[in-house]
């Protein structure tokens, strides 16, 4: 089948559908299933000055945006958005742009290696045969239930492969986890959807079609769920040419980059989000008239106003705004959900949407479209589920742990003691491309290719109206002696024999991919179709995936929602101290951007700080405590303590401090290592009802240490804050 398919045919295909630039299939240096032709017939990518473009999927976060990578003479030059990809429509975020700095990072893991002892610097290079043998041994020599896979958040082909393997052999089902999912509080959203709509799903909020958006802590312009798609939605909200410019109100204790764009920013007391949402609901229902929905009935707006610190008049005015709009949308997310009452917050805010009656309507709430080859939403693990895994590790129930695409030693709060538990695991095998913290504590590192060197697909969990299976292909040949983890597992399964070999009867990763997408070949409404799998696969690669041409979003049923009761209690906070502690994901670095120098050099959108961690503290509070910019403070929580310099921030509650998550690596290459601190070290293991970490549910003590650390800012402290100009502004 493959042998009959020549490069010329590929190139012919390449011309199809490529409007402005020829987006080629993976017939580049990394091609497989392509017959080699004599060098006299030079392919385009070998001409001097000729660029070739390959469509693939961005692996910097789990959203699954489509990329088109420009390559020149075998080098990847520039990533650009795939204009046809329904999720991102040709756009990318900063991390997608900087993905090449991961590909060509000077600190990648260059070949498979065995570590002398965990945590040791000295390693011994291995060849891949030995590596595959080691994986096979690990599979074969342990009971299946003693083998666990810990994977990244992305629902990708590797997850499917391991799931298949686990199902067939009785291994533990792979656990997907990522700090972004933790800070997104995905489990809470999913649980709320399950409770209210009867179906676990990621709700999709159509910001672009709304007229008024109330966001309760959702940082949807930063890292939340699918930032590029939500940013496009935000632009739609503001679009004033064809409709009225939409209004945006943000409720949060610390002004995020998202909150910075709000027309009204309301610094409520942390933990009172549910109360405020219900109070607004009650006031809005009063304005709308009719009988008072049960869900709002028990709330006293005055009480909510007192507790939240938002004036009653303001609540009334917001309710008026919400009620009078014919396209009001309320979004729960971020820190509002990462509290002990997070699930109640999510439900209360969704109830506001029920009042607005926007379910399944433009500008309203949908259930996210499931990907084409997906039957139900499978969310990444919550922190509580991770705790269960850690407990299993402690109990010695897990003998072999495979880690791929996630760095639990950095991403999980230290209080969950993943590090301690790993000592009870006899063998840890990491597939990390970078020498991260977890890879340092692993016995073996069998590096996977970088995402741009890899095959694969990824299901788009949310953000697109159409169901999307985003396709990935190598845009360059592997730079180092790395190997696709799927290939390693397939080969090792063959070696291990038995049910392992039977579970993965594939020659290699690509054959596995083909087997997975073959069913889409002849489905109706598909963006592509093909007569045979090779052609279909070529289209799949060329277009950067497969998507339906129809809207696949579900309309949640709003029935009963207004007749429920939601406990509108305030959240509980763990620990002693005068400050609420709000950790937030750095919009530019996220969880794994710190090793890319240009991401480090990007100014944080709210503070413009580069290359470090800071603590945001209200100007008045800082003044009272005698703290100035760049003063080091010690922050003590019940789980730990750390020191970081202060950024005196005008837009945070006086009783709150905030810190970005993303720095504080102790490994991960020269640009990340030893830079800043990791606020996850301060987080205790408290969970909300849905099992998400109550990461915003801590109280901390702050003391000035007397030292200073000059934060690098892009902004001028003089020009922006008037500090040092000779007058106090």
């Amino acid at each position, binding site marked *: 089948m493959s042998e009959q398919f020549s490069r010329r045919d590929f190139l012919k295909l390449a011309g199809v559908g490529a409007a402005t630039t020829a987006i080629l299939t993976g017939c580049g240096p990394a091609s497989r299933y392509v017959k080699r032709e004599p060098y006299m017939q030079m392919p385009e990518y070998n001409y001097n000055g000729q660029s070739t473009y390959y469509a693939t999927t961005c692996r910097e976060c789990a959203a699954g945006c489509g990329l088109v990578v420009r390559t020149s003479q075998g080098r990847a030059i520039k990533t650009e958005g795939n204009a046809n990809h329904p999720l991102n429509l040709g756009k990318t975020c900063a991390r997608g742009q900087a993905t090449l700095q991961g590909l060509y990072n000077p600190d990648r893991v260059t070949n498979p290696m065995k570590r002398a002892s965990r945590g040791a610097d000295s390693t011994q290079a291995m060849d891949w045969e030995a590596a595959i043998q080691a994986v096979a041994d690990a599979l074969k020599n342990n009971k299946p239930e003693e083998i666990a896979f810990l994977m990244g958040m992305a629902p990708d082909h590797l997850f499917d492969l391991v799931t298949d393997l686990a199902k067939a052999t009785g291994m533990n089902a792979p656990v997907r986890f990522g700090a972004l999912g933790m800070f997104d509080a995905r489990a809470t959203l999913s649980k709320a959807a399950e409770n209210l709509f009867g179906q676990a799903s990621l709700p999709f909020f159509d910001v672009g079609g709304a007229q008024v958006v109330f966001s309760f802590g959702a940082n949807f312009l930063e890292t939340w769920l699918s930032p590029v798609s939500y940013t496009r939605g935000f632009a739609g909200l503001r679009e004033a040419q064809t409709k009225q410019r939409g209004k945006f109100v943000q409720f949060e204790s610390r002004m995020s980059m998202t909150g910075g764009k709000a027309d009204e920013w309301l610094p409520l007391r942390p933990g009172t989000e549910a109360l405020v949402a219900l109070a607004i609901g009650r006031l809005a229902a009063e304005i709308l008239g009719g009988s008072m929905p049960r869900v709002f009935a028990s709330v006293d707006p005055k009480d909510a106003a007192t507790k939240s610190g938002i004036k009653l008049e303001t609540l009334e005015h917001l309710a008026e705004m919400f009620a009078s709009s014919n396209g009001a949308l309320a979004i729960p997310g971020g820190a509002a959900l990462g509290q002990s009452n997070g699930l109640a917050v999510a439900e209360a805010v969704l109830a506001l949407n029920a009042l607005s009656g926007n379910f399944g309507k433009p500008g309203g709430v949908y259930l996210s479209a499931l990907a084409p080859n997906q039957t139900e939403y499978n969310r990444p693990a919550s922190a509580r589920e991770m705790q269960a895994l850690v407990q299993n590790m402690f109990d010695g129930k897990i003998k072999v742990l495979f880690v791929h695409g996630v760095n639990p030693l950095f991403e999980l709060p230290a209080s969950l003691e993943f590090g301690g538990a790993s000592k009870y695991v006899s063998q840890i095998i990491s597939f990390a491309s970078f020498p991260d913290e977890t890879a340092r504590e692993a016995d073996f590192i069998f590096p996977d290719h970088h995402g741009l060197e890899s095959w694969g697909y990824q299901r788009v969990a949310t953000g697109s109206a159409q169901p999307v299976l985003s396709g990935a292909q190598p845009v360059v040949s592997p730079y180092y002696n790395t190997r696709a983890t799927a290939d390693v597992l397939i080969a090792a399964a063959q070696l291990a024999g038995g049910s392992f070999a039977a579970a993965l009867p594939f020659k290699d990763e690509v054959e596995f991919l083909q087997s997975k997408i073959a069913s889409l070949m002849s489905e109706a409404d598909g963006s592509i179709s093909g007569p045979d799998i090779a052609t279909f696969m070529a289209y799949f690669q060329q277009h950067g995936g497969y998507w339906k041409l129809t809207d696949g979003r579900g309309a949640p049923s709003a029935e009963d929602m207004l007749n429920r009761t939601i406990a509108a209690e305030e959240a509980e906070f763990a620990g002693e101290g005068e400050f609420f502690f709000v950790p937030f994901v750095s919009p530019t670095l996220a969880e794994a951007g710190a090793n890319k120098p240009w991401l480090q050099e990007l100014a944080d959108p709210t503070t413009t700080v580069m290359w470090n961690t800071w603590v945001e503290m209200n100007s008045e509070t800082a003044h009272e405590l005698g703290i100035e910019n760049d003063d080091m403070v010690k922050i003590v929580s019940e789980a730990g303590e750390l020191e970081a310099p202060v950024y005196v921030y005008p837009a945070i509650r006086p009783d709150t401090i905030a810190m970005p998550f993303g720095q504080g690596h102790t490994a991960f290459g020269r640009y990340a290592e030893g830079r800043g601190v990791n606020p996850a070290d301060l987080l205790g293991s408290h969970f909300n009802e849905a099992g998400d970490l109550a990461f915003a549910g801590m109280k901390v003590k702050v003391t000035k240490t007397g030292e200073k650390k000059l934060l690098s800012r*892009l*902004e*001028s402290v*003089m*020009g*922006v804050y008037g500090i*040092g*100009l*000779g*007058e106090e502004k």
Partner: protein
Amino acid sequence: MAYEKKHAEHAHAAHAHGEEHFREKHLMLDPLPRGQMNDMVMESMMEKPTWKFWVVIAILSAIVAYGLVYSWAKMIAEGLGIAGVNRPAYWGIFLVNTVFWIGISHAGTFISAILRVFKAEFRRPFTRAAELMTTFGLVQAGFSIFMHMGRVWLSYWLMPYPNQRMLWPNLHSPLTWDLLAITTYLLSSTMYLFLPLIPDLAMARDRSTGWRKNFYKILALGFRGTEGEWTHLRNAMNIFAFAIIPVMFSVHTIVSWDFAAATRPGWSSTIFGPYFVVGALHSGMGAVIVVLAVIRATMKHMKYFIRAEHFDAIGKLMLIISMAWAYFFFNDYMVQWYGGDKWTKQLLHFHEAGPMGWMWFAMLIFNIVIPWAILWNPKWRSTPWLVSIVGILINVGMWFERYIIIPVSLTINRMPFTWRLYKPGVEIPLGLGTLAFFILLYMIASKLIPLIPVWEVQEGQMAHELKKFGRETVVTVSELE
């Protein structure tokens, strides 16, 4: 020595005779034979240097080697990152020093050419010392401007030279004007230094042996002192004296245009031209008086040539120039302030109340308050040590002025997001290197070049005469030229 003895006798009789009083005070009325003055100048120049001289030379050489040679080489190799320049202060101490040294160099020409043209008699003994400052100061200015460049190895691209790429410097750029003006000034001031030096070089040639004889022989260009040679020399000097004055004014005016022609708050000022010229004279006069005090204190016989009357005369000039500077400063400030442009207002406020406010006030104290407080008093301004302290402070004040105009003013622009303070880095050793090199050149020159133009002093002495009318002693001057 003969001179000291004679002078002591004069002093002894000073009270008794008005004539003696005049002689003591005025060099021009205290003539010595030409031969004796020649010997004194030669002796002061050829005197065997003491160990102190060598120690100072060694220290200065070390500073030059570290500051100028090593630091500069390092900066060329690594880039301007090791200096303190940044956005928005793209210009820093290098250009401060450039302006400063050009300012220093102004005094030489001013004293020599303007005073010569106006026949100010007190100038005669120290024109040479001042002219040397011009040339050596310009050397430092040149160094400083080249240090400033990002790719100094390509600095010849700024010169209009024929090249196959048909590229030419941009004559719209004030920097190109600047380069041409400074080059012109350096060449003309060197020639202007050299012309009056010829008779003295010839004098030195006739009174020295060995390598010195050859050295002076070459430099003296065969001058024998014939009537024809003197006529030509005088004509040439006259032409140069008149011609160099506009060059001098233009140089610092053009330097000021580097700033005034820019679209920046605080810089776009039409008064910058004369303001800079006066500022240059202010620092230049201050420097001259320091140099004279040092020469007088350290070199033999100089107390004969350089007297209190000279300090008094330069002190008066300094006072006048300080007033002129104050006038221009006020004028510039007033118009900028009254203009009410928000960026300019912000800048003026930043000057006074910002982190560099101390420098702004120090500038006013050093440039105005101290000179006015001290120089009004004839006795004080005739005291070499006191007046040279004033000279040093004026120079510090004027350096501060340039520092405020360049990096401090650059902090404030129309994009507040970029405002940032400038902190010097390698500029400090490099700046000290230029200062050390200036002093070093001066010290070497003092051993090679007759610092006193003997012929000019003698010319003046011949023209001056004390005449008695009854009981009155009157000074008369006859026109020689």
